């Protein structure tokens, strides 16, 4: 089956851009504003949209996404509500959606049930940060059966012989974690990381998108030639947190998204090889 996520990233690349993949915690800041923000992001240059399922113990996340998740949980956002939000947003956009969730909510629902529900709501792929490929067989079976991509992560600490195995199992794209750290940490793009990312890209048959700590158009510009896609989460959430009125939050998120996606046009057009 052709991956909608992979196709969307490749399409951006063919247009001379690095794909823009914004992240938002589902149900943050509230259910209806969340849907409006997602739609606004799709209209502000997002090629793929990543939605986070709030979890009580998000150990890969920094303080920003933790607090957004807590706010959503306090507002009663369950996995069922998350999928309602996805479905409502999906009706109003064409960009494919990726669901980011920790493993336990999947196990609790049952892998088959969770995959079926996600697909039905309009999710195209899933990222599970605490599920490395060696533990993923059950999930991969369920995901494949329901036509969902499963995107695995590569970290700067991942040795190249491991990269090949992970790249063989990922679908949609390969998520390159820009640093050893949690989401939303200060990003410093070192030459070592750029070189490692280059090697990872050569080993991957699917696009490689980079995330964690990407917050400014300058970051986006720096990474636009090193990756096929750029993921921005905490910076968008901080932008939303800084606005009192839901309408302001929607517009502010859209403005940041537009400036980030504009920064992803490659100076030399579509000639970046992969």
């Amino acid at each position, binding site marked *: 089956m052709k991956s909608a996520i992979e196709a969307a990233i490749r399409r951006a690349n063919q247009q001379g851009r690095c794909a823009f993949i914004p992240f938002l915690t589902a149900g943050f800041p509230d259910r209806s504003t969340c849907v409006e923000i997602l739609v606004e992001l799709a209209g502000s240059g997002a090629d793929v949209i990543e939605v986070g399922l709030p979890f009580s113990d998000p150990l890969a996340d920094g303080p920003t996404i933790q607090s957004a998740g807590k706010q959503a949980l306090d507002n009663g956002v369950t996995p069922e509500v998350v999928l309602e939000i996805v479905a409502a947003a999906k009706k109003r956009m064409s960009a494919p959606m990726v669901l980011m969730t920790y493993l336990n909510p999947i196990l609790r629902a049952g892998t088959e049930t969770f995959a079926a529900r996600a697909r039905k709501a309009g999710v195209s792929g899933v990222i599970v940060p605490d599920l*490395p490929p060696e533990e993923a067989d059950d999930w991969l079976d369920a995901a494949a059966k329901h036509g969902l991509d499963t995107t695995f992560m590569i970290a700067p600490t991942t040795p190249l012989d491991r990269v090949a195995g992970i790249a063989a199992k990922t679908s949609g794209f390969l998520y390159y974690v820009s640093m050893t750290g949690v989401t939303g940490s200060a990003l410093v793009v070192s030459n070592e990381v750029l070189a490692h990312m280059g090697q990872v890209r050569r080993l991957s048959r699917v696009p490689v998108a980079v995330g964690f700590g990407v917050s400014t158009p300058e970051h986006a510009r720096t990474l636009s030639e090193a990756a096929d896609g750029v993921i921005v989460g905490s910076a968008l959430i901080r932008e939303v947190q800084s606005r009192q009125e839901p309408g302001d939050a929607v517009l502010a998120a859209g403005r940041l998204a537009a400036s980030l996606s504009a920064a992803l046009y490659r100076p030399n057009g579509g000639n970046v090889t992969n």
Partner: protein
Amino acid sequence: MKSWPALSEEPKPLTGRPDVRGRFGAYGGKFVPETLVPALLELDAAFEGALADSTFRSELDDLLRNYVGRETPLYEAVRFSRRLGGARIFLKREDLAHTGAHKINNTLGQALLAQRMGKKRIIAETGAGQHGVAAATAAALLGMECVVYMGTLDIKRQALNVTRMKMLGAEVRPVASGSCSLKDSVNEAVRDWVTNVRDTHYILGSVVGPHPYPWMVREFQSVIGSETRRQILDREGRLPDVLVACVGAGSNAIGFFHSFLDDPVEMIGVEAAGLGLETGKHAATLNAGSVGVLHGALSYLLQDDDGQIIEAHSVAAGLDYPGVGPEHSHLKDIGRVRYVTATDREALRGFYLLARTEGIIPALESAHALAFVEQLAPQMSKDSLIVVCLSGRGDKDVAQVDEQTEVAP
């Protein structure tokens, strides 16, 4: 001099080494962000190498003997036994180990391993503060930087141990997220480790977390049971009838039980029932939980219908954890260990009973094991033998217990 018990014994058929995926039966594994996977593979290999290295083992054995004060005594609590009327009760005195609990067995082992791996910095989580103190102690001894994550609730109720950690040169970082207790400290320690993985070793304090931790911590703690087995055989010429230990995440219990798994000895793990299982305010993961993934391992845990982790409750900070070691989950499922519960109130009664009959103030965690023995011993004959793992001393708890005036005798 007596020959020192081997750190790692021959693999036991029932539950020896976890399998290649780090599983005990169905439980365990390595459910962590990719950043940590290479670090866990490195740790696994380093631990394997250390086990096979006689220099490492003699260095650790020397520290356990001359620094920790092992072996710890096996003491027959005659007045406590007589008061309960029934079985003869022995206490494995881990409370007499340096720093006042069994935790030091593990932190010295892991700190030596960290040094061997060239790590300069160690981090730890702590609930009751006993593991934090033991980690800070090992760090001071080996000249390493140490950061301990501790929930703000626990900082308040275990103030003595916070002071001890600071005096030992460790930095105590308060954790104000979630339930402000042990679970959240683990989250924060993992986040630190993800960030500083290249120069930092995470000294996890119990038999939880991703492989190889549940196996490695068990190996370092199995000295408790191997000593106990030899001591009771020397003294009584036979094996005990029953072993009893408290179970939070479960490191003292696994270390205590492990050498007896192939013996005809009944084993009982006592979980914290908090305010009562029916109230939902408890930490009885094996008795009232269900299977899922928390902190890197598949095991029993406390969760709601959507898979969100539920906050645990126990008067004992060291038991206040919604997960449990994967090997315990396996031992429960195969029926080898029986897991029961004791409430906050029962534990407080056990605390006072031991203090008044034996002049020993137990940790509130260990008091849960004593509370169950209070029910068990009278049902057993006078020639039967119970050994209780007295995992820690109660100095840290005296202020908190003193406030619970309704239970005071």
